[in-house]
């Protein structure tokens, strides 16, 4: 199957800037996969995201969404309805005074029939667990709830892929968990393609693929276990490593033979405990 999103040697410089924000990015996102993008501030993460739904178009190179060139002005709406975008500040992407009216915004823009909009709105709100709040005023919700409403608002477009641009940066740990869980559920249960852009490495642990962006180019691309195991790279990029990966690396340095790269806390503890027990037994 063709990838849902394809970047071909994309270069982009913001008007008035001297430095390139993206310098030659090649990237393809497989359908149904969960891709996390990690990078420090100014690495080009948001610029990358904005290329995925034709908010920005490449200076040179091209971006294809489901085979459509994003630079084709005639087909901008075709691109945007396929790619749902969720941004950092939940307050600045909610347009209506009532939750359900906000979720209806995108299908209304697309000229969907009223009865169908109602069906999609209800389905989207149930999917993110906000159906009971459909009549609430958005400004009275918590950050995590607002962000889930924003996610429902793009799901109602029935996109093929959902791109979340640092959706948890302004949330407390509880809100972060809600949003990350929702993102994973969309991919694992609904088969949607998800691109999660973040600077919290913990959120990347469950992803199928982790891309590290640095100064506008891709510095690493692999499974989270592979990427986090590359200590030199992580240090060079000024990125933290999950506690689990860090611990495994140092135990190995101390001579322990640990197999695999489990990043979840429970799995990691299991591996360490088993290895310690085996070592003890073999010593006896």
């Amino acid at each position, binding site marked *: 199957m063709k990838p849902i999103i394809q970047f071909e040697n994309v270069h982009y410089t913001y008007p008035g800037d001297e430095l390139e924000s993206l310098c030659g990015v090649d990237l393809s996102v497989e359908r149904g996969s969960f891709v996390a993008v990690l990078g420090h501030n100014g690495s080009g993460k948001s610029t990358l995201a904005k290329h995925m739904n034709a908010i920005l178009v490449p200076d040179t190179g091209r971006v294809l969404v489901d085979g459509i060139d994003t630079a084709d002005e005639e087909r901008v709406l075709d691109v945007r309805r396929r790619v749902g975008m969720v941004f950092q500040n939940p307050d600045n992407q909610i347009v209506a005074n009532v939750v359900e009216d906000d979720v209806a915004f995108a299908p209304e823009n697309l000229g969907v029939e009223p009865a169908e909009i109602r069906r999609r709105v209800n389905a989207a709100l149930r999917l993110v667990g906000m159906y009971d709040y459909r009549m609430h005023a958005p400004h009275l919700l918590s950050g995590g709830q607002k962000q889930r409403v924003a996610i429902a608002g793009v799901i109602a477009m029935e996109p093929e892929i959902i791109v979340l641009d640092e959706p948890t940066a302004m949330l407390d*740990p*509880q809100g972060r968990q809600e949003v990350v869980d929702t993102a994973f559920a969309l991919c694992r249960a609904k088969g949607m393609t998800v691109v999660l852009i973040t*600077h919290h490495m*913990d959120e990347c642990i469950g992803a199928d693929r982790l891309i590290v962006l640095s100064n506008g180019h891709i510095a690493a691309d692999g499974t989270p276990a592979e990427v986090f195991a590359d200590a030199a790279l992580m240090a060079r990029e000024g990125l933290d490593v999950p*506690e689990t990966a860090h*611990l495994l690396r*140092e*135990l190995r340095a101390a001579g322990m033979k640990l197999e695999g790269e489990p990043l979840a*806390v429970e799995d990691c503890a299991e591996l360490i405990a088993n290895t*310690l027990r085996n070592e003890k037994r073999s010593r006896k």
Partner: protein
Amino acid sequence: MAEIITENLCHTYSAGTPFEQTAVRDVSLRIPQGQFAAVIGHTGSGKSTFIQHLNALLQPTSGRVLLDGQDINRDKYARRDVKWKVGLVFQYPEYQLFEETVYRDIAFGPTNMRLGKEEIDERVREAAAFTGVEEALFDRSPLELSGGQKRRIAIAGVIAMRPEVLILDEPTAGLDPAGCAQILDNIRNYREKTGATVLIVSHSMDDVARIAGRIIVFDKGRVAMDGTPEEVFSRARELSLIGLSIPKAAQLACALRDRNIPLPEGIFTHERLLEALLAVREGRTC
């Protein structure tokens, strides 16, 4: 000299209306001079309301706040002067920058204190040095700088008042790991050089575990726990009931203990965990 005491502090918003809401209930705390304390709690736990009482931005509905034994709300002069002694940095402080130049923005507090020009200049430079704001930036507009730089300028604006107590609400929110580490370093440095009392509000357990000597946990407007990081993080189950997590290293230690690995209590940093695990491995259980 800068000890803060709260006595039975209560705060109710919109009292007497249908929207009445009690945010802080009966909080009595003593934060001694020079302490580095962290206040944690999830959104709506009352922690932000609480800290706004410590420099008289909010007045208690009942109870008192004492700074060095004096009621900070005793008259309007006391309420004004306490703002110089207790510096409060709000969440996302970069949103308060307004002056044309970085220098003038940092000087805003000292200017309000009606200090002399030289004194102001000295304080601005000192505050900039504490927060790592280069003097080359002084003539730039604060609005055109990066997020991390703006944050440090805003913190410098409070430090320039030379507060004896420095309170910061979520100083690292929204910053990337490098930015976080730098800000926490700046704060630690300020405390070490000046002996100020520091209170930091945070949801990041991993940050707090590393720097604070005392952790105060807020829940539903009350103090739910108060103690050293060892004491507080050893009550993992209660913390998770409140909706708070413990540092990742402490979580790993818990998971290992569940698997009968004899780790001692009170592990919450990476270094301690590694050390304890290696000790177990070599057969010297501590």
